[in-house]
């Protein structure tokens, strides 16, 4: 007697007695215990400390929602929110366009294709801290790759990390280099799972490459693109490692992303409650985005 294995619906209740009856709980317990203890409990603890005032790492008194009010009156917080939003929108947009191009480029079979794909995703495998180092070595005005190239063709070395807009765009470009491969991978999987019939029909009808792309590829790929964009945007919102290594938020506050500001508020300025409140607001933004992404993923047939 076979049971239909529809995703989302668990299989039939399995019979049994004694150990067999307790088995599911014994098998589920350790994982749940670990996640509850190490992630969920600290989360609740953090929520509590976001309403506190701390001195020397100890909560002195409760201040209610003051820390949250403080954030909205803090120009640095608001500025870093705006910087983060600009960073996410620019980087993810460019990554999506490039990723889509790459996916279309290598969505074919042939010799070397697996090698080519493995090479293209190299940037997202490399340790993010090292990616920061790589781009320091590219942008540095004295020893950088760009300076060397400029020198070789007789130009002045570009000043990237010493100007606000230069550093910001440098960070965007770093992110594009590192994470275009992720968009590429997700979109490639999407392209490979598309039905072939519409494309064969289009070919029979004599539709050109561009028409086929606009009429068939894009609409079929739309759900995948939405999922990929939301997943990447969620991650980009809390970019930390790369900016920590590349600029530490500078020059000035031109690359001060929200996660870096939260980190510094805690570890440099020792404002525990305020930092916790700030990071909680980030969490809320992320969870709204995540809920959106999950809703999309559930709707997508797979």
């Amino acid at each position: 007697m076979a049971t239909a294995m529809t995703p989302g619906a668990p299989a039939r209740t399995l019979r049994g007695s004694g150990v067999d009856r307790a088995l599911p709980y014994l098998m589920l317990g350790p994982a749940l215990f670990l996640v509850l203890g190490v992630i969920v409990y600290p989360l609740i603890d953090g929520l509590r400390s976001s309403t506190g005032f701390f001195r020397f790492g100890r909560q002195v008194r409760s201040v209610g929602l003051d820390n949250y009010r403080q954030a909205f009156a803090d120009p640095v917080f608001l500025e870093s929110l705006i910087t983060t939003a600009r960073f996410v929108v620019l980087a993810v947009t460019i990554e999506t366009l490039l990723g889509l191009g790459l996916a279309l480029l290598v969505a074919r079979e042939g010799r070397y294709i697996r090698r080519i794909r493995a090479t293209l995703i190299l940037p997202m495998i490399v340790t993010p801290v090292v990616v920061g180092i790589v781009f320091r070595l590219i942008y540095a005005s004295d020893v950088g790759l760009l300076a060397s190239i400029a020198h070789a063709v007789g130009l002045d070395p570009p000043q990237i990390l010493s100007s606000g807009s230069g550093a910001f765009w440098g960070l965007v470009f770093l992110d594009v280099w590192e994470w275009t491969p992720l968009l590429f991978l997700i979109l490639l999987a999407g392209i490979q799972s598309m039905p072939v019939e519409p494309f064969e029909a289009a070919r029979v009808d004599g539709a050109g490459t561009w028409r086929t792309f606009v009429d068939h590829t894009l609409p079929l790929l739309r759900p995948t693109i939405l999922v990929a964009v939301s997943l990447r945007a969620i991650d980009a919102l809390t970019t930390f490692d790369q900016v920590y290594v590349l600029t530490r938020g500078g020059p000035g506050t031109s690359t001060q992303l929200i996660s870096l500001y939260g980190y510094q508020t805690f570890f440099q300025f020792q404002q525990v409650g305020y930092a916790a409140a700030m990071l909680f607001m980030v969490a809320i933004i992320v969870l709204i985005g995540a809920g959106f992404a999950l809703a999309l993923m559930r709707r997508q047939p797979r």
Partner: protein
Amino acid sequence: MTRARFGGLAWVAATVAAMAFAVIPLAWMLLTSLKTNREITQDTSLVPEALTSANYVSLFSGREFGAYLTNSIIVTAASVAIALALGTMAAYVLARFRLWAGMHRYVGFSLLMVRLLPPIVIIIPIFLVAQQLGLLNTRLSLIVIYAAFNVTIVVWMMESFFREIPVDLEEAAMVDGDTRFTAFRRIVLPLAAPGLVATGIFTVITTYNEFLFALVLTSTPGAETMPVGAATLIGRINVDWGAMSAAGVIGALPIVVFSFFVQKHLVRGLTMGAVK
């Protein structure tokens, strides 16, 4: 005919350009790491005159890169192993059983929400708790935290694998006298091996690369991992470019080598980790 050939050429050109875009920044770091500091700072040549291994030697003799490497390997291996063991069992339960109070319906979803939560959100309470427990500067604290985050990924990825395995196979084994657990171990696990491989690859890469928790929780070579070690080499004012680039190469090398060995499953592992 000519148009097709032109298309082929354009394809090759575009593909080569894309690969160059991916590789050249890394190659530049490798090249810089092989130059002497004098050559790095004084000549702006693209090609080094003489190659040196001095930058690498200094990482292991004057600095603690041997210790960072050991810590990274221990922390990654232990936390991934724990997460695979616990997460696989949990995923199996969620895929197969109806649980008390409808738990099978919301536990998986809740774990996914936890997974999407950015780690920086709980960095403050984690730091305070680790401080209270005297767990700062220990590999144990990193192992436990990484294991917890990895469990959420393992459950999410493996649950869908288990759903694709027909339940009849286990029932046949149980008719033949297996207990529920032996049926899981003997029949289901081997069938889910591709899923375990994909999940293992994804978690190894993300765990090895993790920086924030390691930065906050460790500050001595007894527990610091590779990313932290590489980041501490970056001075604010005086930069030892040779050592920094060598640190970058050594820092990324283990995970790049790992990826090379699992090449065949890499693309699938990373794709599934991202969207599943």
